[in-house]
């Protein structure tokens, strides 16, 4: 894989860090994604998508283990990201594997809802 060019992000209480993991990219989200994080997320996720497609990666591991909370506006940012992936030609689409924290209960419900939005692209692990 070419070199990943995605510097860590720290916006308010939200931290985002992407690292190569074999042939995949792991993106860790930590902290809180509330109203303060929504605008930064709306620019960070498209930049991340652009980098992922530049590298031609087939799978992104989205690590929510340390994400304490996400509001609906930030959830919309992820919906938009998933919609962008769905809009790619099939051969350019990549899978999203969400790592959730079983003790953070909203994650089970929200990620299941997100998965229903794009069952062909999203897998959830806890």
């Amino acid at each position, binding site marked *: 894989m070419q070199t990943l060019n995605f510097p860590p992000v720290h916006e308010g*209480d939200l931290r985002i860090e992407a690292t190569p993991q074999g042939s995949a990219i792991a993106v860790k989200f930590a902290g*809180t994604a*509330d*109203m*303060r994080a*929504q605008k930064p997320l*709306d620019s960070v996720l498209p930049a991340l998508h652009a980098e992922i497609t530049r590298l031609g990666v087939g799978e992104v591991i989205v690590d929510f283990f340390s994400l304490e*909370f996400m*509001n*609906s*506006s930030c*959830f*919309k940012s992820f*919906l*938009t990201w998933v*919609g962008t992936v769905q809009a790619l030609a099939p051969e350019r689409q990549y899978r999203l594997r969400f790592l959730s924290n079983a*003790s*953070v*209960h*909203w994650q089970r*419900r*929200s990620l299941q*809802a997100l998965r*229903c*939005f794009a069952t062909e692209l999203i897998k959830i692990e806890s």
Partner: protein
Amino acid sequence: MPNPYFTLKFRPNVALVSTVRRFVEEFFAEFLDDPDSTSRIALATHELLENAVKYASDEETVLAIEIFSGADGRRSVSIQTTNRAKPENIARVRALVDEMNQADPLAFYQTVMRRSLSVPVGSSGLGIARIRAECEMSVELKVDDGVVTLLVTAATEAAR
């Protein structure tokens, strides 16, 4: 044992919403054995308060949360926010709640998720749809002379 309750009258801002959410989750964890229930209460509280931050037309919002026993003896939780709002925002939330309450919660949530992709953030109703679908709460709207009350209610496990 008296019903556990919590009432807060304040001027919410973006940072305080998360602070209140954490406090509400810890507060009701003292009375509920089910962490999923306290998580649902916290999530609904957060979404309701963020709506107040966005749409309240003056500075005061009242948040009231209570765990109570229904006529069937089951313990339930009610969460209510009250604030003044502009007529156009009242009309928007009324239309959303009316549409939502005629549909299956999860199906409506998926509809709003798709709809949200083509509308500006904060105007899709995703937060309220999330309360109904993910928190499994009924949603009721009351309007009285420009003052809006959103009341969400759900069954929960028995309190200690």
